[in-house]
Each structure stands twice: as structure tokens, then as C-alpha cells.
């Protein structure tokens, strides 16, 4: 498998007078799992649509391996954007059957793995004769995941793939994703609201907020920059001195702060002041960062 990067430079998207993406630039490296995180309406789907040439950008450029992606059949054959299939189309019900969708997918993706697709159909317990409009939300998510994994496309985008899945199916998805990631050199970009259980899967996170890319960082590095400090208020305040505070929670005389610029020096000060120093979960960090921006 080749190792090309997907690069976006100064992407802007305007709907009418409203700009929904404000000059986003990013590079997606080969063999990496990205988590695309953002609140509803942050522009995640629009961004993914633009990166995969399904939505035209108002300005900016997207290239894959140095070639523009827009209307480029060669580049697009290596990119898969799997989004939830709608049970309705504009003129009524979506009457496509799963087997028709799978057959269509096999026409387009040069690396399409028919045997793997069949294996996934069995693993998910899907009836390929069923029409999309007759599938439950969870089953439609399974079809989305199936298409993404069996496409074997070097760069694969999944838009909210686990939204309709129960906890068992979500676990199954993350297992399959990691298996596929280990056996190939594929890049995955996954947008999700259920951050906590996916946090361990993401190697890098892209935080999108109100159409701007707030952060694009290695997950472990990002999390290492923040810490929860908790203990008696005066001790915590002393330990956290000089560090930016993202969040504060008071319970009686004890307080918990989420602080940035965490490093070894901070750990030492925490020990000196008898303050507990704990890692911040990705989901919480996202809530604080998004909240801070809003404030």
C-alpha cells in the first residue's frame, strides 16, 4: 500500500452569507487513526465532505499525494468517506438493498475485499436482501462500517460510525478497526460524539470548534499537557500557580482544578504540597476547551 498524505490548505466554506469553516489547514499522515471531535454544527461533516471532494469548498485546496482531490478519479479511488445511509431520499424511501450497495461499492474501490465484506456481513448478522429504509439505525451504522472497512481504501473517513450502535457493537467496531489498522497501512479519520471509549483508539485528535481547528495533536502528548489537581484549596492554588486553569470544581474545602502546561515540575510541586495530580480524560478536556472558547 502506498503512503501518501492528504493535505488541506486554508479551507473555507460558506453557505449563503454564513462562513462555516474558517481557513482550515491540516495534513493527514499515512497509517494513523485520527479522531475528529467537535460539537454539533462545528463543521465536521462539511470538512470531511470537502476533504473527500463530496462537497465543494468555497476556497482553499485539498491534495492527496500532491494531486488535487477535486474531480480526480485516481485520488478519489483511494479515499473512502463512509457516512450513514439515509432511510429516506428526497423522493421517498431509500429502496436500495444492502447487496446492491455492496455491489456498487465493489465497482468503485479498487481494493474492495469481497470475502472480508462477506465476513463482516456474517459478523454483524445483516440480511443483504433488506432495503436500507427497512434497517434499524444500528444496522445502517453497521453497513456504514462494513463499507468503510471492506473498501480497504488507504484513507478512510467515518462520520459518526457508532452513533446508532449498542455498547457491544461499538466494542466490536473498535476491535475490527484496530485489527484492520494493524494488518494494513490505512489512515482512518473518525468523527464521534462518544469520545471517552474511542479515546484510546485515536492516535491523533483534531478538535473542531465553530468551524475552526482548535487543536491537531498527538493524543498522548495532548493529554500529557493537562492535569487534574485536587486537594485543599490553598494547597491546590499554590501547586497550580502560574498554570492556566481550564476548569474548577469546589466541594466544601477541597477543590479540583484542570490545569494546562502540565510537566514534571508540576508533578513535583504537587508532591510537595500534597496535592493529587491525575490525568484528564479526553472527553473532559474537550468539554473544557470548547467551553473555554465559548466563554
Amino acid at each position: 500500500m502506498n503512503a501518501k498524505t492528504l493535505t488541506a490548505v486554508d479551507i473555507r466554506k460558506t453557505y449563503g452569507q454564513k462562513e462555516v469553516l474558517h481557513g482550515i489547514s491540516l495534513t493527514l499522515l499515512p497509517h494513523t487513526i485520527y479522531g475528529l471531535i467537535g460539537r454539533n454544527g462545528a463543521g465536521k461533516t462539511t470538512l470531511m465532505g470537502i476533504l473527500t471532494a463530496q462537497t465543494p469548498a468555497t476556497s482553499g485546496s485539498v491534495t492527496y499525494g500532491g494531486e488535487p482531490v477535486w474531480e480526480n478519479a485516481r485520488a478519489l479511488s483511494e479515499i473512502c468517506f463512509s457516512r450513514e445511509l439515509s432511510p429516506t431520499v428526497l423522493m421517498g424511501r431509500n429502496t436500495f438493498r444492502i447487496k446492491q450497495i455492496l455491489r456498487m461499492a465493489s465497482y468503485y474501490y479498487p481494493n474492495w475485499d469481497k470475502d472480508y465484506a462477506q465476513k463482516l456481513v456474517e459478523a454483524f448478522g445483516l440480511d443483504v436482501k433488506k432495503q436500507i429504509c427497512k434497517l434499524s439505525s444500528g444496522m445502517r451504522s453497521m453497513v456504514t462500517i462494513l463499507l468503510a472497512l471492506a473498501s480497504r481504501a488507504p484513507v478512510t473517513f467515518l462520520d459518526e460510525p457508532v452513533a446508532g450502535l449498542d455498547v457491544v457493537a461499538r466494542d466490536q467496531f473498535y476491535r475490527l478497526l484496530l485489527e484492520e489498522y494493524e494488518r494494513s497501512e490505512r489512515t482512518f479519520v473518525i468523527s464521534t460524539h462518544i469520545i471517552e471509549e474511542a479515546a484510546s483508539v485515536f492516535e491523533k485528535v483534531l478538535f473542531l470548534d465553530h468551524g475552526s481547528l482548535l487543536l491537531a495533536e498527538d493524543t498522548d502528548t495532548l493529554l500529557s499537557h493537562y492535569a487534574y489537581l485536587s486537594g485543599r484549596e490553598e494547597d491546590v492554588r499554590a501547586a497550580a500557580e502560574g498554570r492556566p486553569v481550564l476548569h474548577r470544581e469546589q466541594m466544601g474545602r477541597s477543590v479540583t482544578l484542570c490545569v494546562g502546561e502540565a510537566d514534571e515540575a508540576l508533578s513535583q510541586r504537587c508532591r510537595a504540597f500534597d496535592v493529587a495530580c491525575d490525568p484528564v480524560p479526553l472527553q473532559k478536556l474537550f468539554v473544557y476547551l470548547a467551553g473555554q472558547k465559548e466563554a
Partner: protein
Amino acid sequence: MAANCKSYWQYVWYYPILIVGLFVFYSFLYSALEELDVLVVASASMAVFITAIVFLYASVQVFPMTLQFGSTRKASIGALSVVELLWGVAMPLVLAACIGLLRGSAATALFIQILPVYIPVQFLAASGGGLLGFAVMRLRKVMRVVSFVLFFVLLFGCFMLFMPMLTRKLSGVPAEVSVLPVIIAVLLAAAGFLGEWLAARKYSV
């Protein structure tokens, strides 16, 4: 392009069977009357209406799917046009064969007489149906309904215009009489194809 053609064909292939089935039904319906010209014109009208609906649905359902699977807009709309043109030629031939089989060579001869009118109208229905699909996908709700109604009024009006001409043609009116409506139909069909291309250019999934 091949992948797109297969995708569209996968969606539309069974509609000719429906048309042939309806034709057989018509054939039995009109068999007692022995009015072959009525049968021929009625079959062609029915095929035209079904064509418009088929391509309306094909553009709404298949076009976004092809883009979702990584097709370029150019390849997808090109394939849709190819399938529309193929259908425009193939459907009359299929009907001609059916008429010949069921009602004999006299009926086939009548059918062949209307082909110069029927084929352009069939193209018009295919491209118009496809274009309407794009209008439905891109326009606001009220406009969708308006364009939907307008299209069928136009198509129906167009066919009403052609009907007397077809009947005259069947009864031996010189061929020149039909030239103008044929030109109109070809121009409208061409406008339909062009409209589809323009609408597809910046379509967002």
C-alpha cells in the same frame, strides 16, 4: 465511467420489463378494438412517462451514491447521460419487437412510422426526468413541488401536442409536418442534458 454505468444500469434495468409488461396488458386491452394506431400511440406514451419517472428516481437515488463511492461528477453524469441515450434507443426497439410479436408486422410498420417522433420524445423524457431529479435535490421545498408539477404539465402538454401529429402520421400525413416538433423535442432534450451537467457540477452529497 464503467462503474457508474453499471451502477445506473443496476437501478434501471428492471423498468423495461415493467414497460413491456404494461404493453402486453395494453395489447390485450385493445385487442378487441383492433385499433392498432391507438395501441401504438398509447404504448409509446406509457413508455415515455415511465422513462421520465425512472430517470427522475435514478438521478435522485443513484447520483449521490456514486459520488459517495468516490466517483467524479463528470464520470457519474456522463454515465447517466449514456444510460439515458441507450434507454432512448433501446426502449423503442424493445417495444417494436414486442408489438411485432404480439400484433404482427402491420403493427410493427405503424410503430416504425412513429419512431422519428417517439425517439426524440423519449430522450426528452429521460433528460427531463434526470434534470427534474437535480431540481428536486437542489431546490427548496416549494420550488421542488412547483418544478415537479411544471415538468409533468410540460411533458403531458408536449405529448398532447404530438398525439394528433402522430395520428396524422399514422394516417399518411407527409413527413415534413413532423419536423418542427421533432426539432423542439431534440432541443428540449439537449437542454435537459445540459441542465443535468450544470446541476451536477457543484452538487454536494
